[in-house]
């Protein structure tokens, strides 16, 4: 049996907001009947304030699917639609004190049902853009589709490449045979042959700076480094944006999954390290949220 948290069990055994909201004006229906999960989310939205006054769920699915649905309705009740849309699947999983990697898709289904319901309320069409494959790496919950896409997009050739770009295989290593099989398949489709001893692909090398740069050249160089790091961040569902460079400090916005991720600080440290290597000078990378004050002071100076 799965190692479910007490929170998951609580929401499964005594689900909150089960059943359809009678006078619902927003309905989201998502699921995958082949993997055994389907969810109908019904909301009663106040047309004036756009506040979700009531939420109900009907779920065909396993224990964690029911628990995810239940906790989702609890999270979004009382929120405006815009606030609710900010709820990520990670928020749902966190609220349940975590889900086993094989079960993270239950939280994804919750978020998608919410998006679908909001789209339904606003008269928009909601399209699901994510395809789900068989789970390959259980340590980091990476599925086959993700690995295949990254092999195609980044011309990956070895298991090490796949680990660098997706994290898959970076834990217990039990899935390396499966990753090799995927590499073999994709490379065959590309007319290449999988060679387990191939050297890992070369990183997109950004040429190191040898001569002093103008301010504009420096900013362009920093952009170039960020671009080279982007694939890894996007593999984790995140992104980075350069906001401002003042003296030796680069201000960045971490977006997507990077935003609020516990790993963000580590990621920023990694970006900083890379920038210093390329620019050959000390650079500090700071989240743009800490910039405001400084800009004001500078602005004041100019005024």
């Amino acid at each position, binding site marked *: *049996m799965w190692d479910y948290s007490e929170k998951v069990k609580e929401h499964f055994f005594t689900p909150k907001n089960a059943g359809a909201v009678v006078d619902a004006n927003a309905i989201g229906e998502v699921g995958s009947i082949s*993997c055994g999960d389907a969810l109908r989310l019904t909301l009663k939205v106040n047309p004036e304030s756009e506040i979700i006054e009531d939420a109900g769920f009907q779920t065909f699915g396993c224990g964690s699917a029911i628990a995810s649905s239940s906790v989702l309705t609890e999270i979004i009740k009382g929120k405006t639609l815009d606030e609710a849309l900010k709820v990520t699947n990670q928020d749902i999983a966190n609220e349940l004190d975590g889900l086993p990697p094989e079960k993270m898709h239950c939280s994804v289904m919750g978020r998608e049902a919410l998006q679908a319901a909001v789209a339904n309320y606003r008269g928009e069409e909601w399209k699901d853009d994510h395809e789900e494959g068989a789970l390959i790496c259980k340590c980091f919950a990476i599925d086959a589709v993700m690995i295949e896409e990254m092999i195609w997009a980044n011309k990956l050739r070895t298991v090490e490449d796949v680990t660098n770009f997706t994290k898959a295989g970076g834990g217990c290593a039990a899935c390396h045979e499966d990753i090799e099989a995927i590499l073999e398949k994709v490379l065959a489709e590309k007319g290449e042959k999988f060679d387990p001893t191939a050297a890992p692909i070369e990183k997109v090398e950004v040429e190191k700076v040898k001569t002093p740069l103008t301010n504009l050249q420096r900013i362009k160089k920093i952009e170039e480094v960020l671009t080279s790091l982007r694939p890894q961040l996007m593999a984790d569902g995140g992104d980075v944006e350069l906001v401002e460079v003042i003296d030796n400090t680069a201000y960045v916005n971490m977006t997507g999954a990077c935003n609020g991720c516990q790993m963000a600080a580590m990621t920023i440290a990694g970006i900083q390290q890379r920038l210093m290597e390329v620019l050959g000078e000390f650079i500090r990378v700071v989240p743009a949220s800490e910039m405001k004050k400084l800009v004001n002071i500078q602005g004041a100076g100019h005024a």
Partner: protein
Amino acid sequence: MPDIYLDNNATTKVDPAVVDVMIPFFLEQYGNPSSIHKFADGVAKALKKARGQVQELIGAEHDSEIIFTSCGTESDSTAILSAIKAQPNRKEIITTTVEHAAILNLCENLEKEGYTIHRLPVDKCGRLNLEAYKKMLSDQVAIVSVMWANNETGTIFPVVEMAEMANAAGVMFHTDAVQAVGKIPMMLQDTKIDMLSISGHKLHAPKGIGVLYLRRGTRYRPLLRGGHQERGRRAGTENTASIVGLGKACEMAMEHMEYENVQVKAMRDRLERGIVEQIPNSFITGDLNNRLPNTTDIAFEYIEGEAILMLLNKAGIAASSGSACTSGSLEPSHVMRAMQIPYTAAHGTIRFSFSRYNTMSEVDEVLKVMPDIVATLRKLSPYWDSQNNVPVANPEAAFTPTFK
């Protein structure tokens, strides 16, 4: 009421009498059976006795046809890999779509190495088509491997007849009989079955012990080479205590064969009849007239198996499910898909498997809680109309989620 164990096809409780005969081989007669001293002098004799007890249960002609292994999976792998190694010119294997993973995944791997795998389909009742099977047999086939009884539905396959057909075509025949041995009588010496796998823990012996039956004269290549144990056919120091335990378990299975097919079957029958009578939109899967006496697999439409198991577990009842979620895969059981059970039912299949330790009062207890469990989950289901306790009209049309 104490907890109720109805998951005996997954594994069984070790019979206390089996534990008793094992203990001296941990504490007193712990010598290596190959040694010549008094810590070992009773061990070889005990192994011989156990070999005879296994031989008796499956009706083998000679006790030297019994090779002790570490588990059913090892026996399966040994059988198939032996057949292809001994006949390097034969590049085809015949099996079924509903085998255990021990066979299916091995065959899938051999497929990557260039073998052609013929997988016999089953009909909606889980039965094989022998005409189709006959056409597959040729001098290119290294081995046929067909389970004696299916672990999920309990459906019994005509392996004796299929072995005759293989033999007539000059093809080796293996059967994975881990679910059948000890539950239905067999007399291998009267059949053309060349190899057969047994797993100890399915018949009240411990985990970690198995048997490969190898008919005398069958061409064979060992999987593990090394010492002279098992006449060099399976090297590695004997798991003496477990072998002795398995021998005892086989003897007891023999004694209980009638009980299994009368009393145990009666419990199973009462449970499944009670469930389908009380609970709407539930049905039994598999070949109802040709099943193991201890197994029933029931589909509860419009709800999901893992959720059912969690509620059963809360009520102190252990069973298992063919749903995707219980296995960690994204698809429901390959057996249910092979029988073309619709997804909305396949995800809600629950297998109850009995043993001689179960009682009728346990059956009544399950019958008492099952309707509420199903009703509770159906209340949450978008496919169910709780007010009228029926599926919503035209369920597939009424609820059409955006599919991934």
